[in-house]
């Protein structure tokens, strides 16, 4: 029987959790040989924080600072994409695409998943407790509820955190 073509969207960020999620996905979901899968790596640049949530002060930045902040965020995006592409290097048959978008990660991930009509979205979970979730919001929670396609949420178990990922 022919193998099925699947498009898998993996949302990555700077944290170690998403590197773990990606490597778990590569080990368990994507077949190494004989696979027609497409892997889409998505990095979302969060929008500028103009108003700090807790104390309500607004920030007014000069144009120079804004441009240097933008450049810094673009550099971070490129580094993350390079690092994750390296993790995928050993896959021979799998096509790897990368995307960088700007916006609120929750909405961007759902939109990109719809636009590229992926079969599955893979997210890492930062393991926020109840209070952090209330303040910071949970990307994985929101996506699981709003994405039209199945969502795989990978939590990094605590005993793996101590060892380094190869």
């Amino acid at each position, binding site marked *: 029987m022919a193998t099925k073509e699947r498009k898998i969207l993996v949302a990555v960020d700077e944290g170690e959790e998403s590197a773990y999620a990606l490597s778990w996905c590569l080990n*368990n979901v994507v*077949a190494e040989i004989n*696979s027609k899968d497409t892997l889409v790596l998505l990095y979302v640049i969060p929008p500028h924080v103009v108003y700090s949530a807790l104390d309500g002060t607004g920030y007014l930045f000069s144009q120079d600072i804004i441009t240097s902040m933008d450049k810094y965020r673009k550099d971070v995006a490129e580094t993350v994409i390079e690092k994750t592409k390296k993790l995928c290097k050993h896959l021979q048959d799998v096509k790897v695409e990368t995307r960088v978008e700007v916006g609120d990660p929750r909405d961007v991930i759902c939109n990109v998943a719809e636009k590229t009509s992926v079969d599955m979205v893979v997210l890492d979970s930062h393991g926020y407790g109840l209070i952090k979730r209330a303040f910071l919001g949970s990307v994985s929670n929101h996506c*699981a509820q709003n994405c039209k396609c199945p*969502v*795989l*949420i990978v939590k990094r178990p605590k005993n793996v955190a101590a060892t380094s990922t190869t």
Partner: protein
Amino acid sequence: MKVLVAIDESEGGLYALKWALENLFFNHETATPGAEGSPVITVVHVQPHFQPPHTAIPVGPVIFATPAVMDSVKKAQEESASEVVSRATKLCEQHMIKPEMMVIRGNPKEMIVEAVEDMNADILVVGSRGLGQIKRAFLGSVSDYCVHHAKCPVLIVRPPKSSGK
């Protein structure tokens, strides 16, 4: 790879099972039969404990559940469980995969998480009823609970919207 699929009587659970069979096991046929690493699928159906009506509302007419009522409810639950099990088994056979079936009674959220731990599952697949924000707060969401507490990655499969396809 050990896959645990949690289903209930709703269509969402069976859709999750169908999706898992179609998408997680595609390389089952290309691999040699009985090879190491061929996926093992376990289907779990958790039946909530029957809540006798007299515990629900402290005020108002109290209905005592007579033994006859309890028996008939138990029988109805067993029938519905066996129907779910047979539908799931049929679905798995269509994809040429032999599943292990488990039926547990208890609180669905906790039982599913416990089953993941006992079996050392590699991935848990749950359907999602698509509850809105408010319903989630009141009814509680099994898939939410599983994501927070299960030891392994959780795949949440939402049923496709029937309109606008």
